Protein backbone atom coordinates (compact mmCIF):
# COMPACT_ATOMS: atom_id res chain seq x y z
CA UNK A 1 0.00 0.00 0.00
CA UNK A 2 2.79 2.38 0.99
CA UNK A 3 4.60 1.78 -2.27
CA UNK A 4 1.81 3.44 -4.23
CA UNK A 5 2.62 6.78 -2.67
CA UNK A 6 5.29 9.01 -4.21
CA UNK A 7 8.52 9.53 -2.27
CA UNK A 8 8.74 12.69 -0.22
CA UNK A 9 12.34 12.33 0.87
CA UNK A 10 15.08 9.92 -0.08
CA UNK A 11 18.58 9.61 1.32
CA UNK A 12 21.12 7.64 -0.67
CA UNK A 13 24.35 6.58 1.01
CA UNK A 14 24.79 9.66 3.16
CA UNK A 15 28.19 9.92 4.85
CA UNK A 16 29.05 12.62 7.31
CA UNK A 17 32.35 13.39 8.97
CA UNK A 18 33.19 15.66 11.86
CA UNK A 19 36.69 17.07 11.71
CA UNK A 20 36.89 18.63 15.12
CA UNK A 21 38.80 17.56 17.16
CA UNK A 22 39.69 14.55 15.02
CA UNK A 23 38.15 13.11 11.90
CA UNK A 24 35.24 10.92 12.94
CA UNK A 25 32.57 9.45 10.79
CA UNK A 26 29.16 10.11 12.30
CA UNK A 27 26.97 8.82 9.49
CA UNK A 28 27.88 5.72 7.52
CA UNK A 29 26.10 5.08 4.23
CA UNK A 30 22.69 6.03 5.53
CA UNK A 31 19.97 5.23 3.03
CA UNK A 32 16.20 5.30 3.49
CA UNK A 33 13.13 6.94 2.11
CA UNK A 34 10.00 8.54 3.41
CA UNK A 35 6.81 8.20 1.39
CA UNK A 36 4.24 10.92 1.26
CA UNK A 37 1.71 10.64 4.05
CA UNK A 38 4.04 8.58 6.24
CA UNK A 39 4.67 9.35 9.90
CA UNK A 40 8.21 8.16 10.52
CA UNK A 41 10.29 8.34 13.67
CA UNK A 42 14.04 8.01 13.95
CA UNK A 43 15.24 6.53 17.21
CA UNK A 44 18.58 5.64 18.64
CA UNK A 45 20.87 6.32 21.55
CA UNK A 46 22.43 9.70 22.16
CA UNK A 47 25.34 10.26 19.81
CA UNK A 48 24.19 7.74 17.22
CA UNK A 49 23.94 10.56 14.65
CA UNK A 50 20.19 10.92 14.40
CA UNK A 51 20.14 14.68 14.93
CA UNK A 52 23.05 15.09 12.53
CA UNK A 53 21.04 13.13 9.98
CA UNK A 54 18.02 15.36 10.54
CA UNK A 55 20.02 18.53 9.91
CA UNK A 56 21.35 17.06 6.68
CA UNK A 57 17.82 16.10 5.63
CA UNK A 58 16.63 19.55 6.58
CA UNK A 59 19.08 21.03 3.98
CA UNK A 60 20.63 23.27 6.62
CA UNK A 61 23.78 21.15 6.78
CA UNK A 62 25.24 20.78 3.31
CA UNK A 63 28.59 19.30 4.30
CA UNK A 64 28.02 15.60 3.59
CA UNK A 65 28.61 12.94 0.95
CA UNK A 66 25.86 11.00 -0.72
CA UNK A 67 22.65 12.08 -2.38
CA UNK A 68 19.46 13.59 -1.13
CA UNK A 69 16.23 13.76 -3.10
CA UNK A 70 13.22 15.73 -2.04
CA UNK A 71 9.94 15.44 -3.85
CA UNK A 72 11.77 13.62 -6.65
CA UNK A 73 14.34 16.37 -7.05
CA UNK A 74 18.05 16.02 -6.32
CA UNK A 75 18.86 18.71 -3.77
CA UNK A 76 22.46 17.78 -3.05
CA UNK A 77 24.78 20.55 -4.27
CA UNK A 78 22.10 23.18 -4.81
CA UNK A 79 23.01 26.76 -3.87
CA UNK A 80 22.29 27.92 -0.34
CA UNK A 81 19.68 30.48 -1.31
CA UNK A 82 17.78 27.87 -3.27
CA UNK A 83 17.88 25.55 -0.28
CA UNK A 84 16.60 28.35 1.97
CA UNK A 85 13.68 28.82 -0.37
CA UNK A 86 13.10 25.07 -0.41
CA UNK A 87 13.05 24.95 3.39
CA UNK A 88 10.61 27.79 3.43
CA UNK A 89 8.27 26.17 0.99
CA UNK A 90 8.53 22.46 1.61
CA UNK A 91 9.76 21.83 5.12
CA UNK A 92 8.22 22.69 8.46
CA UNK A 93 10.39 22.51 11.57
CA UNK A 94 9.66 21.67 15.15
CA UNK A 95 12.67 21.80 17.47
CA UNK A 96 13.24 20.55 20.96
CA UNK A 97 13.29 24.12 22.13
CA UNK A 98 10.28 25.86 20.67
CA UNK A 99 12.32 28.67 19.05
CA UNK A 100 9.53 31.13 18.65
CA UNK A 101 10.48 34.76 18.11
CA UNK A 102 9.73 36.46 21.40
CA UNK A 103 9.46 39.87 19.72
CA UNK A 104 6.31 38.79 17.90
CA UNK A 105 2.83 37.68 18.83
CA UNK A 106 1.80 34.05 18.45
CA UNK A 107 -0.13 34.87 15.29
CA UNK A 108 2.78 36.75 13.73
CA UNK A 109 5.15 33.91 14.59
CA UNK A 110 3.00 31.56 12.61
CA UNK A 111 2.66 34.00 9.75
CA UNK A 112 6.36 34.81 9.27
CA UNK A 113 7.28 31.78 7.10
CA UNK A 114 4.16 32.48 5.06
CA UNK A 115 5.06 36.14 4.63
CA UNK A 116 8.52 35.05 3.59
CA UNK A 117 7.10 32.71 0.97
CA UNK A 118 4.81 35.45 -0.25
CA UNK A 119 2.29 33.08 -1.81
CA UNK A 120 -0.68 34.45 0.10
CA UNK A 121 -1.62 37.99 1.04
CA UNK A 122 -1.31 39.11 4.63
CA UNK A 123 -5.07 38.86 5.21
CA UNK A 124 -5.21 35.34 3.83
CA UNK A 125 -2.23 34.33 5.93
CA UNK A 126 -3.85 35.73 9.03
CA UNK A 127 -6.91 33.65 8.31
CA UNK A 128 -4.83 30.54 7.63
CA UNK A 129 -2.77 31.09 10.77
CA UNK A 130 -5.96 31.29 12.82
CA UNK A 131 -7.12 28.06 11.20
CA UNK A 132 -3.90 26.33 12.24
CA UNK A 133 -4.20 27.71 15.74
CA UNK A 134 -7.73 26.33 15.94
CA UNK A 135 -6.39 22.83 15.20
CA UNK A 136 -4.26 23.18 18.31
CA UNK A 137 -6.98 24.88 20.35
CA UNK A 138 -4.72 27.89 20.77
CA UNK A 139 -6.82 30.52 19.04
CA UNK A 140 -7.48 32.49 22.23
CA UNK A 141 -3.72 33.02 22.64
CA UNK A 142 -3.23 34.39 19.14
CA UNK A 143 -2.39 37.92 20.21
CA UNK A 144 -0.16 37.05 23.15
CA UNK A 145 3.57 37.47 22.88
CA UNK A 146 5.40 34.17 22.41
CA UNK A 147 7.15 34.41 25.78
CA UNK A 148 3.83 34.62 27.63
CA UNK A 149 3.01 31.00 26.80
CA UNK A 150 3.85 27.81 28.66
CA UNK A 151 6.31 25.31 27.19
CA UNK A 152 3.61 22.99 25.88
CA UNK A 153 1.70 25.87 24.34
CA UNK A 154 4.83 27.16 22.67
CA UNK A 155 5.49 23.77 21.15
CA UNK A 156 1.98 23.66 19.77
CA UNK A 157 2.47 27.11 18.25
CA UNK A 158 5.75 25.88 16.77
CA UNK A 159 3.91 23.02 15.09
CA UNK A 160 1.27 25.42 13.81
CA UNK A 161 4.07 27.55 12.38
CA UNK A 162 5.57 24.49 10.69
CA UNK A 163 2.23 23.95 8.96
CA UNK A 164 1.59 27.45 7.63
CA UNK A 165 3.01 26.87 4.13
CA UNK A 166 1.37 23.43 3.78
CA UNK A 167 4.79 21.80 3.69
CA UNK A 168 5.65 18.60 1.94
CA UNK A 169 7.30 17.37 5.11
CA UNK A 170 7.43 18.25 8.79
CA UNK A 171 10.65 17.54 10.61
CA UNK A 172 10.82 17.34 14.35
CA UNK A 173 13.94 17.23 16.50
CA UNK A 174 12.88 15.81 19.86
CA UNK A 175 9.68 17.84 19.78
CA UNK A 176 8.59 16.46 23.13
CA UNK A 177 12.07 16.22 24.61
CA UNK A 178 11.71 19.27 26.76
CA UNK A 179 8.13 18.78 27.91
CA UNK A 180 6.53 17.11 30.90
CA UNK A 181 4.37 14.01 30.47
CA UNK A 182 1.10 15.86 30.13
CA UNK A 183 2.27 18.35 27.55
CA UNK A 184 4.25 15.72 25.77
CA UNK A 185 1.05 13.70 25.39
CA UNK A 186 -0.81 16.67 24.02
CA UNK A 187 1.92 17.34 21.47
CA UNK A 188 2.15 13.69 20.52
CA UNK A 189 -1.60 13.50 20.01
CA UNK A 190 -1.41 16.53 17.75
CA UNK A 191 1.23 14.84 15.65
CA UNK A 192 -0.94 11.73 15.36
CA UNK A 193 -3.92 13.86 14.47
CA UNK A 194 -1.95 15.54 11.71
CA UNK A 195 -0.87 12.15 10.39
CA UNK A 196 -4.31 10.62 10.46
CA UNK A 197 -6.60 13.50 9.57
CA UNK A 198 -4.43 15.56 7.29
CA UNK A 199 -2.15 12.83 5.90
CA UNK A 200 0.80 15.04 6.76
CA UNK A 201 4.20 13.53 6.02
CA UNK A 202 6.36 13.72 9.14
CA UNK A 203 9.85 12.71 10.14
CA UNK A 204 10.54 12.96 13.85
CA UNK A 205 13.77 12.31 15.70
CA UNK A 206 13.08 11.17 19.23
CA UNK A 207 14.37 8.97 21.98
CA UNK A 208 10.95 8.79 23.58
CA UNK A 209 10.11 5.13 23.01
CA UNK A 210 6.42 5.67 23.60
CA UNK A 211 6.33 8.42 21.00
CA UNK A 212 8.14 6.25 18.48
CA UNK A 213 5.79 3.37 18.93
CA UNK A 214 2.86 5.57 17.97
CA UNK A 215 4.34 6.32 14.53
CA UNK A 216 3.80 4.42 11.27
CA UNK A 217 7.38 3.33 10.95
CA UNK A 218 10.49 3.43 13.13
CA UNK A 219 13.96 3.90 11.71
CA UNK A 220 16.45 2.76 14.30
CA UNK A 221 19.98 3.99 14.23
CA UNK A 222 23.11 2.87 15.98
CA UNK A 223 26.62 4.19 15.65
CA UNK A 224 25.90 6.11 12.45
CA UNK A 225 24.13 3.27 10.69
CA UNK A 226 20.49 2.50 10.08
CA UNK A 227 20.06 -0.89 11.72
CA UNK A 228 16.34 -1.33 11.27
CA UNK A 229 13.65 0.35 9.22
Amino acid sequence: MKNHHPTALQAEGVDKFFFNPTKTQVLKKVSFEVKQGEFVSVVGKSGCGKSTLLYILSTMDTDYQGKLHMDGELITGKPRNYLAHLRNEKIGFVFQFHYLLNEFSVLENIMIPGLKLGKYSREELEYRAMEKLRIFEMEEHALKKANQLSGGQKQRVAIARALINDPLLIMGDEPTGNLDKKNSDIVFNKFKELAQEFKQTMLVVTHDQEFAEGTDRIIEMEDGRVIRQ
Partner: protein
Amino acid sequence: MKWSLILELSKALMLARFKQTAVAATGVMFSITMFVTLLGFMNGLNSMLDGLVLNRTPHIRFYNEIKPNPNQPVDITDEFQNTWNIIRSIKPSTSRLAIYNSEQIIQNLENDQRVLGVSPKVSAQVFFNVGTIDLTGIVSGIDVQKEAQLFAFTDYITAGNYEELNQTNTIILGKGLADRMLTGIGDVIQITTAQGNKMQVRVVGYYQSGLGDYDNSNSFASIGTVQKMLGEPPSYVTDIQVKLHNLDLAPSMARELEKIYNIDADDIQTVNAQFETGTNIRTLISYAVGITLLVVSGFGIYNILNMMIYEKLDTIAILKAIGFNGSDVNRIFITIALSIGVIGGGIGLVFGYFACLGIDQIPFETEALPTIKTFPVDYNPKYYFIGASFSLITTYLAGFFPARKASGVDPVDIIRGK
Protein backbone atom coordinates in the same frame (compact mmCIF):
# COMPACT_ATOMS: atom_id res chain seq x y z
CA MET B 1 11.90 38.99 -0.83
CA LYS B 2 9.40 41.48 0.39
CA TRP B 3 10.83 44.59 2.08
CA SER B 4 7.80 44.99 4.28
CA LEU B 5 8.70 41.75 6.09
CA ILE B 6 12.36 42.81 6.42
CA LEU B 7 11.24 46.14 7.84
CA GLU B 8 8.84 44.44 10.22
CA LEU B 9 11.52 42.08 11.49
CA SER B 10 14.05 44.91 11.85
CA LYS B 11 11.53 46.99 13.74
CA ALA B 12 10.75 44.12 16.10
CA LEU B 13 14.43 43.52 16.78
CA MET B 14 15.02 47.21 17.43
CA LEU B 15 12.03 47.51 19.75
CA ALA B 16 13.18 44.41 21.64
CA ARG B 17 16.39 46.26 22.39
CA PHE B 18 14.82 49.68 22.50
CA LYS B 19 17.20 51.23 25.02
CA GLN B 20 20.35 50.18 23.17
CA THR B 21 18.87 51.27 19.87
CA ALA B 22 17.90 54.60 21.38
CA VAL B 23 21.42 55.07 22.75
CA ALA B 24 22.90 54.35 19.32
CA ALA B 25 20.48 56.75 17.65
CA THR B 26 21.27 59.38 20.27
CA GLY B 27 24.95 58.99 19.45
CA VAL B 28 24.27 59.63 15.78
CA MET B 29 21.90 62.45 16.65
CA PHE B 30 24.49 64.13 18.84
CA SER B 31 27.22 63.92 16.22
CA ILE B 32 24.97 65.19 13.44
CA THR B 33 23.78 68.03 15.66
CA MET B 34 27.36 68.96 16.40
CA PHE B 35 28.39 68.57 12.80
CA VAL B 36 25.68 70.86 11.46
CA THR B 37 26.08 73.41 14.25
CA LEU B 38 29.83 73.45 13.96
CA LEU B 39 29.82 73.89 10.20
CA GLY B 40 27.04 76.47 10.29
CA PHE B 41 28.79 78.51 12.94
CA MET B 42 32.29 78.13 11.48
CA ASN B 43 31.15 79.07 8.03
CA GLY B 44 29.05 81.92 9.37
CA LEU B 45 32.17 83.33 10.98
CA ASN B 46 34.20 82.56 7.89
CA SER B 47 31.92 84.41 5.56
CA MET B 48 31.70 87.32 7.98
CA LEU B 49 35.46 87.59 8.21
CA ASP B 50 35.88 87.18 4.49
CA GLY B 51 33.09 89.63 3.91
CA LEU B 52 35.01 92.24 5.89
CA VAL B 53 37.46 92.43 3.07
CA LEU B 54 36.06 90.53 0.14
CA ASN B 55 32.66 92.25 0.04
CA ARG B 56 34.29 95.58 -0.41
CA THR B 57 37.02 94.44 -2.70
CA PRO B 58 36.32 94.54 -6.40
CA HIS B 59 37.02 91.28 -8.18
CA ILE B 60 39.02 93.19 -10.74
CA ARG B 61 40.26 96.73 -10.35
CA PHE B 62 41.53 98.72 -13.34
CA TYR B 63 43.82 101.67 -12.71
CA ASN B 64 46.90 103.42 -13.98
CA GLU B 65 49.91 102.64 -11.90
CA ILE B 66 52.64 105.20 -11.58
CA LYS B 67 55.75 103.40 -12.80
CA PRO B 68 58.69 103.88 -15.10
CA ASN B 69 57.97 103.32 -18.75
CA PRO B 70 59.07 99.77 -19.62
CA ASN B 71 59.94 100.87 -23.17
CA GLN B 72 62.95 103.14 -22.69
CA PRO B 73 64.19 104.89 -25.86
CA VAL B 74 67.59 103.25 -25.65
CA ASP B 75 66.00 99.81 -26.03
CA ILE B 76 64.04 100.88 -29.07
CA THR B 77 66.87 102.36 -31.09
CA ASP B 78 68.44 100.03 -33.63
CA GLU B 79 71.92 101.10 -32.70
CA PHE B 80 71.82 99.56 -29.22
CA GLN B 81 69.77 96.53 -30.10
CA ASN B 82 72.51 93.97 -29.38
CA THR B 83 74.09 95.55 -26.34
CA TRP B 84 73.54 95.54 -22.56
CA ASN B 85 71.78 98.82 -21.77
CA ILE B 86 71.95 100.00 -18.20
CA ILE B 87 70.05 103.13 -17.24
CA ARG B 88 70.59 104.58 -13.81
CA SER B 89 68.24 106.71 -11.73
CA ILE B 90 65.24 106.00 -13.87
CA LYS B 91 62.05 107.97 -12.95
CA PRO B 92 58.38 107.26 -13.55
CA SER B 93 57.09 108.99 -16.61
CA THR B 94 54.50 111.71 -16.21
CA SER B 95 51.55 109.51 -16.91
CA ARG B 96 48.13 110.61 -15.81
CA LEU B 97 46.16 108.82 -13.12
CA ALA B 98 42.91 109.02 -15.00
CA ILE B 99 41.91 106.06 -17.12
CA TYR B 100 41.93 106.89 -20.78
CA ASN B 101 38.61 106.38 -22.56
CA SER B 102 36.99 105.27 -19.30
CA GLU B 103 33.40 105.63 -20.50
CA GLN B 104 33.98 103.23 -23.39
CA ILE B 105 35.69 100.70 -21.12
CA ILE B 106 32.83 100.82 -18.62
CA GLN B 107 30.32 100.33 -21.38
CA ASN B 108 32.24 97.36 -22.78
CA LEU B 109 32.55 95.77 -19.36
CA GLU B 110 28.86 96.17 -18.66
CA ASN B 111 28.08 94.28 -21.86
CA ASP B 112 30.37 91.42 -20.87
CA GLN B 113 28.39 88.30 -19.88
CA ARG B 114 30.78 87.41 -17.06
CA VAL B 115 30.45 90.78 -15.35
CA LEU B 116 27.91 91.35 -12.56
CA GLY B 117 28.45 95.07 -12.33
CA VAL B 118 30.88 97.91 -12.86
CA SER B 119 31.46 100.86 -10.59
CA PRO B 120 33.77 103.78 -11.43
CA LYS B 121 35.71 105.56 -8.74
CA VAL B 122 37.84 108.68 -8.38
CA SER B 123 40.39 108.72 -5.59
CA ALA B 124 41.81 111.99 -4.39
CA GLN B 125 44.48 112.74 -1.80
CA VAL B 126 43.24 115.61 0.35
CA PHE B 127 43.87 117.57 3.54
CA PHE B 128 41.03 117.97 5.99
CA ASN B 129 41.43 121.42 7.50
CA VAL B 130 40.62 121.44 11.19
CA GLY B 131 41.43 124.86 12.57
CA THR B 132 45.15 125.30 12.02
CA ILE B 133 45.79 121.60 11.59
CA ASP B 134 45.57 119.62 8.35
CA LEU B 135 44.77 115.94 8.50
CA THR B 136 45.73 113.92 5.46
CA GLY B 137 43.15 111.64 4.01
CA ILE B 138 41.62 110.16 0.93
CA VAL B 139 38.27 111.03 -0.58
CA SER B 140 36.81 108.37 -2.82
CA GLY B 141 34.32 109.59 -5.34
CA ILE B 142 31.83 106.80 -5.89
CA ASP B 143 28.66 106.03 -7.74
CA VAL B 144 26.52 105.65 -4.63
CA GLN B 145 23.87 103.34 -6.08
CA LYS B 146 26.32 100.96 -7.69
CA GLU B 147 28.61 100.95 -4.68
CA ALA B 148 25.68 100.01 -2.45
CA GLN B 149 24.57 97.34 -4.85
CA LEU B 150 27.96 95.74 -5.57
CA PHE B 151 30.06 96.35 -2.49
CA ALA B 152 27.56 96.44 0.38
CA PHE B 153 28.51 100.06 0.96
CA THR B 154 25.40 100.79 3.00
CA ASP B 155 26.23 98.00 5.52
CA TYR B 156 29.06 100.11 6.82
CA ILE B 157 27.22 103.43 7.16
CA THR B 158 26.72 103.59 10.93
CA ALA B 159 25.08 107.02 11.11
CA GLY B 160 23.39 109.35 8.70
CA ASN B 161 21.70 108.72 5.38
CA TYR B 162 23.77 107.54 2.46
CA GLU B 163 21.20 108.79 -0.06
CA GLU B 164 22.24 112.34 0.73
CA LEU B 165 25.62 111.56 -0.74
CA ASN B 166 24.01 111.97 -4.17
CA GLN B 167 23.81 115.69 -3.61
CA THR B 168 26.91 117.66 -4.49
CA ASN B 169 29.23 118.92 -1.77
CA THR B 170 28.35 116.24 0.72
CA ILE B 171 30.70 113.73 2.34
CA ILE B 172 30.59 110.62 4.49
CA LEU B 173 33.56 110.51 6.85
CA GLY B 174 35.34 107.48 8.25
CA LYS B 175 34.38 107.12 11.93
CA GLY B 176 37.94 107.54 13.14
CA LEU B 177 38.46 110.59 10.98
CA ALA B 178 35.21 112.19 12.15
CA ASP B 179 36.18 111.58 15.80
CA ARG B 180 39.52 113.27 15.30
CA MET B 181 37.93 116.23 13.58
CA LEU B 182 35.19 116.45 16.24
CA THR B 183 32.55 116.90 13.57
CA GLY B 184 28.93 115.90 13.84
CA ILE B 185 26.46 115.10 11.08
CA GLY B 186 25.35 118.27 9.34
CA ASP B 187 28.61 120.13 10.05
CA VAL B 188 30.46 121.74 7.19
CA ILE B 189 34.15 120.98 6.86
CA GLN B 190 36.85 122.34 4.59
CA ILE B 191 38.96 120.21 2.31
CA THR B 192 42.12 121.15 0.42
CA THR B 193 43.21 118.99 -2.45
CA ALA B 194 46.82 118.18 -3.22
CA GLN B 195 46.59 120.65 -6.11
CA GLY B 196 45.54 123.41 -3.68
CA ASN B 197 41.84 123.63 -4.51
CA LYS B 198 39.72 124.44 -1.47
CA MET B 199 36.17 123.22 -1.04
CA GLN B 200 33.51 123.20 1.66
CA VAL B 201 31.49 120.02 2.12
CA ARG B 202 28.73 118.96 4.46
CA VAL B 203 29.05 115.79 6.55
CA VAL B 204 26.03 113.51 5.98
CA GLY B 205 27.14 110.28 7.65
CA TYR B 206 29.80 108.10 9.21
CA TYR B 207 31.43 105.11 7.70
CA GLN B 208 32.87 102.30 9.80
CA SER B 209 34.49 99.35 8.07
CA GLY B 210 35.88 97.64 11.13
CA LEU B 211 39.46 98.23 9.99
CA GLY B 212 40.61 101.11 12.21
CA ASP B 213 43.39 102.41 9.99
CA TYR B 214 41.12 102.54 6.99
CA ASP B 215 38.45 104.49 8.91
CA ASN B 216 41.02 107.00 10.13
CA SER B 217 41.84 108.28 6.67
CA ASN B 218 39.06 107.37 4.25
CA SER B 219 35.94 109.25 3.35
CA PHE B 220 33.39 109.06 0.56
CA ALA B 221 31.71 111.59 -1.68
CA SER B 222 29.82 111.32 -4.93
CA ILE B 223 31.94 110.97 -8.04
CA GLY B 224 30.78 114.39 -9.24
CA THR B 225 31.79 116.07 -6.00
CA VAL B 226 35.31 114.70 -6.20
CA GLN B 227 35.67 115.58 -9.89
CA LYS B 228 34.61 119.11 -9.00
CA MET B 229 37.01 119.16 -6.08
CA LEU B 230 39.88 118.23 -8.39
CA GLY B 231 38.68 120.52 -11.17
CA GLU B 232 38.44 117.62 -13.58
CA PRO B 233 35.78 116.85 -16.23
CA PRO B 234 33.07 114.17 -15.71
CA SER B 235 35.09 111.64 -17.72
CA TYR B 236 37.87 111.70 -15.12
CA VAL B 237 37.91 108.27 -13.47
CA THR B 238 40.92 106.80 -11.67
CA ASP B 239 39.60 103.31 -10.88
CA ILE B 240 37.13 100.99 -12.53
CA GLN B 241 35.90 98.33 -10.14
CA VAL B 242 34.38 95.17 -11.54
CA LYS B 243 32.39 92.52 -9.79
CA LEU B 244 32.02 89.18 -11.58
CA HIS B 245 29.40 86.46 -11.41
CA ASN B 246 32.13 83.92 -10.77
CA LEU B 247 34.98 85.05 -8.59
CA ASP B 248 37.28 82.32 -9.87
CA LEU B 249 37.44 83.92 -13.30
CA ALA B 250 39.05 87.07 -11.89
CA PRO B 251 42.76 86.27 -12.48
CA SER B 252 42.35 85.16 -16.07
CA MET B 253 40.00 88.01 -16.92
CA ALA B 254 42.31 90.54 -15.33
CA ARG B 255 45.21 89.32 -17.52
CA GLU B 256 43.01 89.33 -20.60
CA LEU B 257 41.50 92.78 -20.17
CA GLU B 258 44.75 94.33 -19.05
CA LYS B 259 46.10 93.75 -22.55
CA ILE B 260 42.98 94.92 -24.35
CA TYR B 261 42.59 98.21 -22.49
CA ASN B 262 46.32 98.69 -21.96
CA ILE B 263 45.94 99.55 -18.26
CA ASP B 264 46.82 97.84 -14.99
CA ALA B 265 44.42 95.31 -13.50
CA ASP B 266 44.49 93.64 -10.10
CA ASP B 267 42.43 90.58 -9.33
CA ILE B 268 41.03 89.68 -5.96
CA GLN B 269 42.87 86.35 -5.61
CA THR B 270 46.27 87.95 -5.97
CA VAL B 271 45.46 90.81 -3.63
CA ASN B 272 43.79 88.71 -0.92
CA ALA B 273 45.39 85.30 -1.22
CA GLN B 274 45.74 84.91 2.53
CA PHE B 275 41.99 85.09 3.10
CA GLU B 276 41.25 82.11 0.98
CA THR B 277 43.92 80.06 2.76
CA GLY B 278 42.45 80.93 6.15
CA THR B 279 38.95 80.05 5.03
CA ASN B 280 40.03 76.72 3.60
CA ILE B 281 41.86 75.70 6.74
CA ARG B 282 38.98 76.66 9.03
CA THR B 283 36.57 74.68 6.85
CA LEU B 284 38.93 71.72 6.84
CA ILE B 285 39.14 71.74 10.63
CA SER B 286 35.39 71.85 11.09
CA TYR B 287 34.87 68.97 8.67
CA ALA B 288 37.58 66.95 10.42
CA VAL B 289 35.95 67.46 13.82
CA GLY B 290 32.49 66.66 12.45
CA ILE B 291 33.61 63.50 10.74
CA THR B 292 35.50 62.37 13.83
CA LEU B 293 32.30 62.68 15.84
CA LEU B 294 30.44 60.60 13.28
CA VAL B 295 33.11 57.91 13.21
CA VAL B 296 32.94 57.64 17.00
CA SER B 297 29.18 57.22 16.89
CA GLY B 298 29.67 54.70 14.08
CA PHE B 299 31.73 52.55 16.45
CA GLY B 300 28.90 52.83 18.96
CA ILE B 301 26.45 51.44 16.41
CA TYR B 302 28.91 48.71 15.48
CA ASN B 303 29.16 47.63 19.11
CA ILE B 304 25.44 47.66 19.71
CA LEU B 305 24.70 45.69 16.55
CA ASN B 306 27.35 43.14 17.45
CA MET B 307 25.80 42.68 20.87
CA MET B 308 22.37 42.45 19.36
CA ILE B 309 23.56 39.71 17.04
CA TYR B 310 25.00 37.71 19.93
CA GLU B 311 21.78 38.09 21.85
CA LYS B 312 19.65 37.23 18.86
CA LEU B 313 21.60 34.24 17.58
CA ASP B 314 18.56 32.07 18.27
CA THR B 315 16.34 34.37 16.28
CA ILE B 316 18.79 34.40 13.39
CA ALA B 317 19.07 30.61 13.49
CA ILE B 318 15.30 30.14 13.48
CA LEU B 319 14.83 32.65 10.67
CA LYS B 320 17.34 30.71 8.62
CA ALA B 321 15.73 27.40 9.54
CA ILE B 322 12.34 28.56 8.34
CA GLY B 323 13.71 29.67 5.02
CA PHE B 324 15.37 33.07 5.29
CA ASN B 325 18.64 33.11 3.39
CA GLY B 326 21.88 34.88 4.31
CA SER B 327 21.15 38.00 2.33
CA ASP B 328 17.74 38.39 4.00
CA VAL B 329 19.42 38.32 7.40
CA ASN B 330 22.08 40.69 6.12
CA ARG B 331 19.36 43.09 4.96
CA ILE B 332 17.62 42.95 8.31
CA PHE B 333 20.72 44.10 10.15
CA ILE B 334 21.66 46.68 7.53
CA THR B 335 18.11 47.99 7.81
CA ILE B 336 18.52 48.25 11.57
CA ALA B 337 21.78 50.16 11.16
CA LEU B 338 20.33 52.48 8.53
CA SER B 339 17.19 53.08 10.59
CA ILE B 340 19.37 54.16 13.47
CA GLY B 341 21.19 56.42 11.03
CA VAL B 342 18.03 57.87 9.48
CA ILE B 343 16.27 58.47 12.80
CA GLY B 344 19.35 59.73 14.67
CA GLY B 345 20.50 61.74 11.68
CA GLY B 346 17.06 63.25 11.05
CA ILE B 347 16.63 64.35 14.65
CA GLY B 348 20.24 65.53 14.62
CA LEU B 349 19.60 67.77 11.63
CA VAL B 350 16.56 69.32 13.31
CA PHE B 351 18.47 69.81 16.58
CA GLY B 352 21.43 71.16 14.66
CA TYR B 353 19.15 73.70 13.02
CA PHE B 354 17.76 74.69 16.43
CA ALA B 355 21.28 74.97 17.83
CA CYS B 356 22.16 77.27 14.94
CA LEU B 357 19.06 79.37 15.63
CA GLY B 358 20.21 79.52 19.26
CA ILE B 359 23.71 80.64 18.38
CA ASP B 360 22.19 83.17 16.03
CA GLN B 361 20.49 84.77 19.06
CA ILE B 362 23.64 85.16 21.17
CA PRO B 363 24.65 88.84 21.20
CA PHE B 364 28.00 89.51 19.60
CA GLU B 365 28.74 93.17 19.48
CA THR B 366 32.10 94.55 18.69
CA GLU B 367 33.30 98.02 17.80
CA ALA B 368 35.02 96.69 14.75
CA LEU B 369 31.92 95.16 13.22
CA PRO B 370 29.09 97.65 13.30
CA THR B 371 26.67 95.55 11.27
CA ILE B 372 27.03 92.38 13.37
CA LYS B 373 24.72 92.20 16.38
CA THR B 374 24.69 88.44 17.03
CA PHE B 375 26.97 85.55 16.17
CA PRO B 376 26.85 84.89 12.45
CA VAL B 377 25.54 81.49 11.35
CA ASP B 378 25.48 80.03 7.88
CA TYR B 379 22.27 78.10 7.15
CA ASN B 380 23.50 76.72 3.84
CA PRO B 381 21.48 73.53 3.07
CA LYS B 382 24.73 72.03 1.83
CA TYR B 383 25.85 71.28 5.40
CA TYR B 384 22.56 69.58 6.21
CA PHE B 385 22.87 67.53 3.07
CA ILE B 386 26.46 66.53 3.89
CA GLY B 387 25.44 65.72 7.48
CA ALA B 388 22.60 63.50 6.27
CA SER B 389 24.82 61.70 3.76
CA PHE B 390 27.56 61.14 6.32
CA SER B 391 25.13 59.78 8.88
CA LEU B 392 23.87 57.26 6.33
CA ILE B 393 27.34 56.30 5.15
CA THR B 394 28.78 55.80 8.65
CA THR B 395 25.79 53.84 9.90
CA TYR B 396 25.87 51.69 6.79
CA LEU B 397 29.56 50.94 7.33
CA ALA B 398 28.96 50.35 11.04
CA GLY B 399 26.22 47.88 10.16
CA PHE B 400 28.09 46.23 7.32
CA PHE B 401 30.38 43.92 9.30
CA PRO B 402 27.90 42.87 12.00
CA ALA B 403 25.33 42.19 9.28
CA ARG B 404 27.80 40.10 7.35
CA LYS B 405 28.57 38.17 10.50
CA ALA B 406 24.85 37.63 11.15
CA SER B 407 24.27 36.44 7.61
CA GLY B 408 27.03 33.87 8.05
CA VAL B 409 25.53 32.34 11.20
CA ASP B 410 25.14 28.59 10.76
CA PRO B 411 21.73 27.64 12.17
CA VAL B 412 22.84 24.05 12.79
CA ASP B 413 25.57 25.23 15.18
CA ILE B 414 23.10 27.28 17.17
CA ILE B 415 20.31 24.73 17.27
CA ARG B 416 22.63 21.83 18.07
CA GLY B 417 24.41 23.87 20.72
CA LYS B 418 21.28 23.97 22.88
